[in-house]
């Protein structure tokens, strides 16, 4: 098929403006009505270290970061060294030269454009303008609309003053002139501008915060942790507008404790963390289950165990999300595919927590956290907001009353006549401690059985494709976006492939898994962790015998990897 997308990767030293250059390109493309999907890798260090920003843009929907780059822009020798193995015939490199800190060897068939970024920036007496020079050159070389880019730059720099704005625009023009002096011999170009849809461009982390606020969030307790902290930053910025509260706690144990206190006291509450924080919270998650307190938590997964690879991508918290904690502790686990889901499913997660009065964990991951994507602009009016069932103020109030659907009405403190205790002890209907064996059965059943309607109340798992297939791909999280493209490309080659993309991870919609697997000769489960955690649950809970395909190197899958593996197993 004709190539509609373009992937530009910029690599350099942290602090050189790699990220802002990438952000400007992404924003300009979005402004020009194009679809955008970005992917970034950061060092774990505060300053310095290799940093990479990749923009994939197209006139059609993009589901993932792509296989590799078409255009590589090297800010320094380290970036060149780390990316030169991907310089294949037909690819393009724009590099800092002459006058940079390296002399690249240009492989046969690779097109290279030297742009003296550092030299030009130094001549302008500001080393920091290097990224503007590069941006001007990339704009001229690859049809990134100059007018749109300058609009974006103006929006960004205008508040810093006319001088700073004009200086940056000047550096941009220098880069443009340098590129125009070169002969363009490749055919890569960003798609032409079109009338923009009603979209926003936003990162996964910001989108989780946005979804939560759209979902009626009132209280957020935060503790800093990579790669989840931006969710708290978003909420801290915007929740006061809604007269809501964000508090930074002293640790993750305190943040989930504060969440439970606020939720008990009647507020829609959440926190966000990553794996190590989730591990610390696991005791309090049990308390949320036992006391039936609504509790919403986002886990932005990162490379584990322990400190692991904090800035790298991984999907390895499915075990702890579903079963982490002591005792039998039922909860709901959701997982997002992309930035659009980060908005919509944060609303879902808050709604489910309120409806079922239990912990709801929303799993995101490291690559989505920082990935900016164009998504349909969400509207408050389009979301259904669910609030906890309230006591009708009739008769005797029993907090843990055994009702038909096992969900007991709640009463906020201050309600006359409904004094009660929220307790981590096993309790009877009134909340009083009870070790009675019959009561134990009733209350354990209550906590599990109230979740029996989650599957029917949540939308069915999406199936990509129809009829019988030789291979069914089941995957989760941001790997779904990669699988979508892999399935599409394999189908275009005439292969019979289907996809099954669960978002409700727990309770597991077992019948839907079984029905899907019946239509496929083989099942392949790609996921970014070491053990194959979803494969494990599929084996444990269904009769399916999947082929597990875990990778665990700190990077997301590429469509080509899934295609190659699919061909291998067929």
């Amino acid at each position, binding site marked *: 098929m004709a190539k509609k997308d373009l992937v530009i990767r910029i690599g350099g030293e942290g602090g050189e403006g790699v990220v802002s250059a990438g952000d400007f390109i992404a924003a300009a493309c979005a402004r020009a009505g194009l679809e955008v999907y970005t992917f970034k890798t950061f060092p774990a260090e505060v300053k310095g270290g290799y940093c990479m920003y990749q923009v994939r843009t197209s006139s059609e929907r993009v589901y993932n970061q792509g296989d590799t780059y078409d255009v590589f822009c090297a800010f320094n020798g380290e970036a060149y060294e780390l990316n030169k193995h991907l310089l294949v015939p037909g690819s393009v490199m724009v590099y800092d030269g002459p006058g940079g800190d390296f002399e690249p060897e240009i492989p046969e068939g690779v097109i290279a454009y030297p742009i003296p970024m550092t030299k030009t920036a130094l001549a302008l007496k500001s080393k920091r303008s290097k990224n503007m020079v590069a941006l001007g050159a990339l704009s001229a070389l690859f049809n990134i609309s100059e007018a749109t880019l300058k609009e974006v730059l103006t929006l960004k720099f205008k508040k810093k003053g006319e001088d700073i704005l004009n200086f940056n625009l000047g550096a941009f023009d220098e880069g443009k002139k340098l590129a125009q002096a070169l002969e363009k011999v490749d055919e890569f170009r960003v798609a032409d501008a079109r009338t923009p849809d009603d979209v926003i461009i936003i990162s996964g982390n910001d989108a989780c915060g946005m979804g939560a606020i759209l979902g009626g969030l009132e209280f957020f307790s935060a503790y800093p942790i990579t790669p989840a902290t931006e969710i708290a930053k978003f909420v801290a910025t*915007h929740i006061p507008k*809604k*007269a809501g509260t964000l508090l930074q706690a002293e640790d993750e*144990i305190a943040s989930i404790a504060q969440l439970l206190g606020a939720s*008990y006291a009647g507020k829609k509450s959440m926190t966000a963390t990553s794996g190590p924080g989730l591990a610390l919270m696991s005791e309090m998650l049990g308390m949320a289950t036992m006391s039936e307190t609504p509790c919403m938590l986002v886990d932005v997964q990162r490379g584990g165990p322990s400190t692991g690879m904090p800035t790298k991508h991984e999907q390895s918290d499915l075990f702890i999300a579903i079963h982490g904690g002591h005792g039998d502790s039922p909860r709901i686990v959701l997982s997002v595919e992309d930035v659009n889901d980060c908005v919509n499913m944060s609303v879902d997660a808050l709604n489910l927590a309120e409806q079922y009065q239990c912990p709801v964990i929303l799993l995101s991951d490291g690559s989505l956290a920082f990935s900016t994507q164009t998504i349909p602009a969400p509207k408050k009016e389009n979301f259904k907001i669910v609030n906890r069932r309230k006591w009708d103020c009739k008769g005797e109030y029993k907090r843990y009353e055994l009702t038909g659907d096992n969900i007991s009405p709640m009463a906020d403190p201050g309600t006359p006549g409904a*004094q009660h205790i929220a307790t981590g002890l096993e309790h009877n209907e009134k909340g009083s*401690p009870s070790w009675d064996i019959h009561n134990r059965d009733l209350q354990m059943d209550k906590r599990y059985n109230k979740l029996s309607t989650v599957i029917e109340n949540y939308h069915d798992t999406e199936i990509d494709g129809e009829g019988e297939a030789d291979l069914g791909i089941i995957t989760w999280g941001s790997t779904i976006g990669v699988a979508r493209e892999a399935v599409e490309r394999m189908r275009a080659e005439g292969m019979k492939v289907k996809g099954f993309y669960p978002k409700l991870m727990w309770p597991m919609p077992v019948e839907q898994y079984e029905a899907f697997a019946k239509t496929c000769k083989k099942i392949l489960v790609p996921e970014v962790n070491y053990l194959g955690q979803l494969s494990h649950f599929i084996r444990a809970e269904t009769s399916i015998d999947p082929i597990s395909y875990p990778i665990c190197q700190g990077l997301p899958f590429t469509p080509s990897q899934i295609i190659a593996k699919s061909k291998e197993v067929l």
Partner: protein
Amino acid sequence: MSLAALNKVEMKPKEYKSDVSVVWCPGCGHHGILNGIYRALSELGIDPDNMMSISGIGCSSRTPYFIKSYKMHTLHGRAGAVATGAQLAQPDQCVMVTGGDGDGFSIGGGHMPHMARKNVNLTYVLFDNGIYGLTKGQYSPTSRPEMTAYTTPYGGPEEPMNPLLYMLTYGATYVAQGFAGKPKICAELIKGALEHKGFSYVNIFSQCPSFNKIDTVQYYRDLVEEIPEGHDPSSLGQAIDVARGLENGKSPMGLLYKVDKPTLDEKLAEIVTKVGGHKDYDVNKIVDLYRP
């Protein structure tokens, strides 16, 4: 807690008793503290519907069960953090935490400084018996080294901490100390704490006849002495001097420190005011900020 905003009710101390029977051992000091709490609530006329009583785990953490109020029985060490969230969610309600020395200063030690520092508007009554009672007698952060206990058969290797100095250092705005054997004084100090706007801490010595064989009623009686007249509770310097021990070496009983500072909920409300926030704000405006 600023109690002005709350409805006052006419209830006798015993009317604050819930229908759950008290489970503490005979002779336990906690009975006296509980009576002090009932009396303080009665004198202030606090409406049980407008009170949240929150605890962690331990003998004294059972207290909420015995009081008419909204209540949470949470996890070991976490009562203060849970109460912080509850207080911020319902800043007009009366929030009281009850717990022990192990619950507060050992496993919960990560949270104590921050309630004090942030001036969370709640009252923390710490039943200090120098031992873990519920697990049958292990040494705690306030145990004396000469105490032989479950895990210290040859005596303890550690020096005890001073809860009063700790709280003063971290910025608590109300610090007092009592003794379970003096329930009237306990009631006064708890009453003052509940009336105080800001983080109020009341340390109350409480004998554990079952497991702490050295900190007896008589020991505490000899240990404490009322803070002499003339003490200025608005002076942090004087409070710290007193917290280190009275001139005759006795432990102070009474109000050491009380100062008015903005509370955490007030400061968070200021942020809302600063951004002009209100419940009906159109959140679609936030979405608009992300248009390309």
